[in-house]
């Protein structure tokens, strides 16, 4: 009893709410109560809350209009804590939970008394569509200021400013038939398919399944409709081949029947996912469904009529009135006027009467309405005003009356004198627009159907539709249509359909609906009261008329000029009305004006749900080598190289002080040049190549020669694309006459592997060769420096004698008792051994080297030191010295180009194009800054004349630059126009800070130019 006092609009019984469970919630700081089963919207209406928001542009008070996804006004900010904020929640789709906290998204200082509304009232006239295109242009400098003000006033809710405490996930689903919508058609379809043995998914966006049957006046087999729903749902729930997904919106229909279903798993329970059994479930879940066939039973949205001040709180769609009464036990007012163009909307008046409140009148646009529902209203003594419509609502914060007159819809004229009926609620119905959104996502254009006055979906192969979405609004038709559409889908899938016995339902005699969208007014549209078409974006009939006058004739132009349909409801209520108004203004029919296109999402989806678990620590894989733990324990700093985490440098901490990067790198460099260093080189790509034609293949993909490389030998190679530009480089070892091990750059590994397969599979399938990636199988440890041999000798059985194991040889043997291949190749210019061992044993080998290396001060080094050392030797890094526009010749690497190889290898032909033959191409050189303390900036641009005015002709740039501890100077690699012919010249590098550095062009080999140290 006391509940109903607190909730003045709650009826005593009926509906699907649980009156025994009272829930408290807060709206705009005020406490209210509702019941389990309520939406936030139904609870607000139960409590008599009229104004739920302020409008976007004119700041007009707005109330709840609809009961579902089509609601344009009731957008609220949800959340009691910062992290739990959710902007723009549609109150009609938010289940009420205890403790819910919501605010209106607009309105200052509050939604009741809003300052901006004054601006809206006074300034509204100055804000026709596109007004911002016509002003704010002078002075030009002021636009950024104007913009700031405009932005402040715009927007709806606000973003949370803290990290989301919840997580989200994905579930990949596969099924034979996906049924979207669990109303009468969807349920009968799902039942048919399920009983036939198909794998079925049935989803519905509402809190419970049943769709229109949840608020239906009709009886099925002589029982209330929900009995039948419960029977079907419980049967489906028990079938192993059926997945039932309530609270799940099919939000996007992608190619080849891939549909995303967004399941709200906990949003009805709380603002963050509650702990259950110690685990926190995902807040919501995206089902990524690959369906064999899809059946759309998505229903229809009722269109409100467009009349004067149709946005004042208390104006609602007729269907919403019925839904609130019958499903939620809430009558959203006391005195109702219904304005309709069809029979079906009469339900609202009958439901209103059943709830014990007054129906002032039904205003029917048809001259002589007839049909069973009309009769029922007549029998119950309702006044029916024929051939008329509500012209204009009265009231400001709540409807106080409806001005009604007879009209002629055809000529768009008011034909009689008007009469103002006192009421607090105006329900309107202009007909039903099929919810064709998903069908339209597939790219199929919907077609206009004059019979049902709506667009019906065009269906691509494999998509079926049933029920209201096809215009079958009668219950019996919908049920039957569900079965027959399912049978069609089943037959396409190769299943024999098991017939389903449908329940007995009454068939109503229905009178034809009439076409009415905008209600005529005595005044011309531009002068009359505002008639809202798209309430969320404050688009009026006048705005559409004005747009057409200004030459915006395509519906796409009209929409864009007025912003119609660009709201979060995507114009579910307004689009068809808007098209009809544009058509009227242009003297065309609706289909002539254009069609309507919808894009995913059907209703908005949180970013979190789309992202799923692919965030935070799982945003992107991190790849580790076998020695990763050791690196972490040594305090290494890491560099991201592709997905790999590579040690960048190993700062030492002495007496609590950690070395700077500069100091660490200097120490590491000198250790390699003067003692011995060790590098984890496992990330290099490694490809095992076997087959009698392996050698021939190498000759075709590398620029240099491979015909004579003997087993036991290693060679460096360059790989180009067929445009002649360098793509990757690395060494390849001859393991046997027909067996090679190729290495690639770390970042290039996957690409090179695919490249080899591409050429083999598409151009040269006749060559007998196989490629297999062994990147992960082998770990690679580089031991380098003058002491490398001594160290390695201690733990290997390989003869390391310089005469028998030469530079660019490889040998087999054990290292630390582990079988290894050791390669004498050098990326530092020092005596080097690259040790490959099976990765499971690599850490043992690594640690053994350290156990023996202490006396040599074995120093681990990272990628930074590796870069310095190789640059001192003028060795390139593909991707750093090169950028896809550099040929081997530009790099001065003609020695690695086999011009006379018999097969026209990849990249060869391109080297003789006119542009690649230019003498002033950018060529790689070394740069010595005149001031040795200067380390040039990588990426610094090079000019010949530093005094040239801006724009200054640039002749190249620095590709690599470091401080060299061994040279005690900064040094750099660069590409410079015609650089190979400019040795000894001075160039200039003008910097951001205003300084200009001078540097001399030198050979890119800075250290040990004869290459003696690697041969020792």
């Amino acid at each position, binding site marked *: 009893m006391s509940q109903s006092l607190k909730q003045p609009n709650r009826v005593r019984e009926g509906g699907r709410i649980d009156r025994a469970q009272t829930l408290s919630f807060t709206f705009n700081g005020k406490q209210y109560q509702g019941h389990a089963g309520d939406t936030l919207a139904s609870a607000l209406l139960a409590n008599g809350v009229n104004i739920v928001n302020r409008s976007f542009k004119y700041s007009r008070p707005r109330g709840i209009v609809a009961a579902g996804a089509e609601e344009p006004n009731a957008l609220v900010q949800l959340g009691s804590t910062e992290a739990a904020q959710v*902007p723009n929640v549609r109150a009609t789709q938010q289940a009420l939970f205890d403790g819910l906290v919501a605010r209106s998204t607009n309105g200052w200082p509050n939604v009741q008394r809003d300052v901006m509304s004054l601006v809206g009232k006074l300034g509204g006239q100055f804000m026709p569509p596109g007004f911002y*295109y016509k*002003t704010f242009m002078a002075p030009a400098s002021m636009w950024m200021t104007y913009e700031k003000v405009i932005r402040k006033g715009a927007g709806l809710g606000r973003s949370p400013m803290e990290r989301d405490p919840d997580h989200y996930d994905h579930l990949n689903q596969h099924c034979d038939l996906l049924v979207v919508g669990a109303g009468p058609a969807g349920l009968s379809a799902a039942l048919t398919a399920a009983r036939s043995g198909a794998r079925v998914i049935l989803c519905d966006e509402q809190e419970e399944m049943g769709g229109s049957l949840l608020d239906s006046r009709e009886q099925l087999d002589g029982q209330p409709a929900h009995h039948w729903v419960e029977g079907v749902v419980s049967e489906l729930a028990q079938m192993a081949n059926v997945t039932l997904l309530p609270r799940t919106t099919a939000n996007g229909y992608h*190619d080849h029947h891939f549909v995303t279903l967004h399941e709200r798993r906990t949003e009805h329970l709380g603002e963050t996912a509650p702990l259950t059994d110690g685990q926190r479930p995902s807040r919501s879940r995206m089902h*990524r469904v690959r369906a064999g066939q899809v059946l759309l039973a998505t229903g229809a949205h009722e269109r409100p009529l467009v009349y004067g001040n149709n946005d004042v709180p208390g104006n609602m769609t007729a269907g919403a009135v019925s839904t609130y009464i019958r499903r939620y036990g809430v009558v959203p007012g006391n005195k109702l006027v219904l304005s309709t163009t069809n029979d079906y909307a009469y339900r609202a008046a009958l439901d209103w009467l059943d709830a014990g409140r007054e129906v002032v009148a039904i205003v029917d646009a048809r001259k002589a309405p007839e049909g069973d529902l009309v009769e029922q209203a007549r029998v119950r003594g309702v006044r029916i005003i024929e051939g008329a419509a509500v012209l204009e609502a009265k009231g400001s914060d709540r409807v106080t009356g409806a001005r009604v007159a007879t009209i002629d819809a055809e000529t768009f004229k008011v034909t009689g004198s008007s009469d103002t009926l006192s009421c607090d609620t105006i329900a309107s119905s202009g007909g039903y627009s099929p919810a064709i959104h998903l069908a339209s996502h597939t790219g199929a254009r919907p077609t206009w159907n004059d019979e049902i006055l709506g667009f019906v979906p065009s269906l691509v192969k494999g998509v079926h539709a049933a029920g209201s979405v096809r215009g079958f609004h009668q219950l019996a038709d919908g049920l039957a249509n569900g079965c027959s559409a399912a049978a069609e889908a089943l037959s396409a899938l190769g299943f024999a359909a098991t017939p389903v016995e449908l329940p007995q339902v009454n068939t109503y005699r229905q009178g034809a609906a009439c076409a009415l969208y905008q209600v005529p007014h005595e005044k011309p549209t531009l002068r009359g009261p505002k008639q809202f078409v798209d309430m969320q974006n404050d688009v009026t009939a006048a705005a559409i008329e004005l747009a057409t006058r200004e030459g915006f004739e395509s519906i796409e132009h009209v929409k864009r000029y007025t912003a119609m349909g660009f709201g979060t409801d995507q114009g579910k209520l307004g689009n068809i009305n808007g098209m009809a108004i544009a058509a009227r203004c242009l003297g065309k029919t609706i289909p002539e004006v254009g069609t309507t296109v919808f894009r995913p999402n059907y209703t*908005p989806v949180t*970013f979190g749900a789309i992202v799923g678990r692919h965030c935070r620590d799982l945003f992107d894989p991190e790849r580790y080598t076998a020695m990763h733990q050791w690196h972490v324990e040594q305090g290494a700093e890491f560099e991201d190289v592709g997905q790999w985490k590579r040690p960048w440098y190993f700062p030492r901490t002495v007496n609590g002080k950690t070395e700077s990067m500069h100091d660490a790198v200097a120490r590491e460099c000198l250790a390699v040049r003067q003692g011995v260093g060790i590098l984890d080189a496992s990330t290099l790509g490694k490809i095992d190549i076997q087959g009698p034609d392996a050698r021939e293949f190498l000759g075709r993909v590398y620029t240099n020669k491979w015909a004579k490389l003997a087993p036991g030998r290693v060679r460096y190679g360059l790989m180009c694309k067929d445009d002649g530009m360098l793509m990757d480089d690395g060494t390849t070892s001859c393991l046997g006459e027909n067996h090679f091990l190729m290495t690639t750059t770390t970042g290039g590994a996957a690409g090179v592997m695919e490249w080899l397969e591409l050429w083999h599979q598409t151009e040269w399938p006749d060559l007998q060769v196989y490629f297999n990636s062994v990147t992960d199988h082998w770990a690679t440890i580089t031991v380098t420096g003058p002491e490398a041999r001594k160290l390695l000798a201690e733990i290997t059985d390989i003869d390391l004698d310089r005469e028998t194991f030469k530079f660019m040889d490889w040998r087999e043997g054990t290292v630390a008792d582990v079988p290894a291949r050791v390669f004498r190749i050098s990326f530092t210019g020092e005596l080097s051994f690259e040790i490959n061992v099976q990765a499971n044993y690599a850490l043992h080998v690594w640690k053994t080297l350290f156990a023996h290396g202490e006396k040599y001060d074995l120093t681990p080094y990272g990628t930074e030191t590796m870069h310095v050392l190789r640059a001192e030797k003028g060795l390139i890094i593909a991707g750093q010295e090169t950028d*896809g526009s550099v040929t081997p010749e530009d790099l001065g690497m003609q020695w690695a180009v086999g011009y006379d190889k018999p097969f026209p290898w990849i990249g060869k032909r391109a080297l003789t194009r006119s542009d690649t033959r230019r003498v002033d191409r950018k060529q790689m050189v070394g740069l010595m800054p005149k001031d040795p303390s200067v380390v040039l900036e990588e990426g610094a641009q090079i000019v010949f004349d530093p005094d040239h005015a801006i724009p200054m002709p640039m002749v190249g740039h620095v590709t690599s630059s470091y401080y060299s501890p061994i040279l005690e100077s900064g040094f750099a690699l660069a590409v410079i126009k015609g650089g190979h012919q400019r040795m000894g010249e001075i160039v200039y590098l003008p910097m951001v800070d205003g300084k200009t550095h001078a540097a001399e062009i030198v050979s890119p080999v800075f250290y040990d130019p004869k290459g003696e140290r690697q041969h020792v």
Partner: protein
Amino acid sequence: MQRYSGFGLAKHALSHHENWERQWRNPTPKKQYDVVIVGGGGHGLATAYYLAKEHGITNVAVVEKGWLGGGNTARNTTIVRSNYLWDESAALYEHSMKLWEGLSQDLNYNVMFSQRGVMNLAHTLQDMRDVQRRVNANRLNGIDSEVLTPEQIQAIVPVMDCSKNARYPILGASWQPRAGVARHDAVAWGFARAADALGVDILQNTEVTGFKIRDGRIYGVHTNRGDIEAKTVGCVAAGNSGVLAKMAGFRLPLESHPLQALVSEPLKPVLDTVVMSNHVHGYISQTDKGDLVIGAGIDGYNGYGQRGSYPTVEHTLQAVIEMFPIFSRVRMNRQWGGIVDTCPDACPILSATPVKGLYFNCGWGTGGFKATPGSGHVFAWTLAKNQAHPIAAPFSINRFHTGALVDEHGAAGVAH
């Protein structure tokens, strides 16, 4: 042309806005024009406008198969910047940037060009090298450009995760203060209205079905509304360029791919600049209406369907949440796709063709919107003088034969 101004707006309000004129006419095609522009998007309309305004050539038709500005102009993420790496592209985009800066006044149409700055994030050492290379090049080319530290980035975008514990921590960024966003539709409408006022015929719902070519020379087009004669024809048809080239009997080094974008629901201002990351791959800004506009990647296959693959959207939002974890509860409202014509070197084609008198302006890939005025300006010059504008010269089709590509993929491979 009816002048637009705040005063005019107030005046029209008093007459209930009943006296606004059409923004452009709906003319009947003439038999003959001096120049026919195929494609009524931003670039085509700009070309027509500058032909009339700068070269006095007003007997011009813009032939559009749908509604004007209905292609990529209506579907892009509206970013305008000019901080390109190579001299050739920098010159082109900076030329455009200068035109943007006075465009609203020039057109008497507020295109809402908002110079709120664009930042390109660097997440790896190589990214940083590329950023420095590009910024240095920009400055010497006279383009405003800076390198930002993570601290400076955080100050400009307080809501971004600039911490070291990100999977790919932000190491720095390039920053162009003059860059920003504009209102895409208004650009097309503004050019259309201004061109129309100078006498250009904008022919909507007019589809070119073939070219009239004789002895290797163009002399008109066939359309669904009859033949139109013209000795000079410029095709500015973005994703449809390949189809037009085929009609004219040659191929282009182009592929048309889906490029997707999406928007959130409108939010109160939360992001005051444009943030782009090539490495984690996403870019984002906030419109004046409050929507977060997010650019997704390009799909790898050819597609004219104005839609792409869902995983592309997933990857983009993963990137956005990696950069902006606080947006996890913000909701995606809508997604859509454009058709972008991409060149192998990520640079456009502004060029004569094997057919004399027939010119193509295409291949803008993901970067066309920002070039709109500049592209139209140099293309108009090219059409008017039958000779490549110096800024357009490096972008000839010929470069794919000589090898003189302007490869923006490389160091400055920042798309969009």
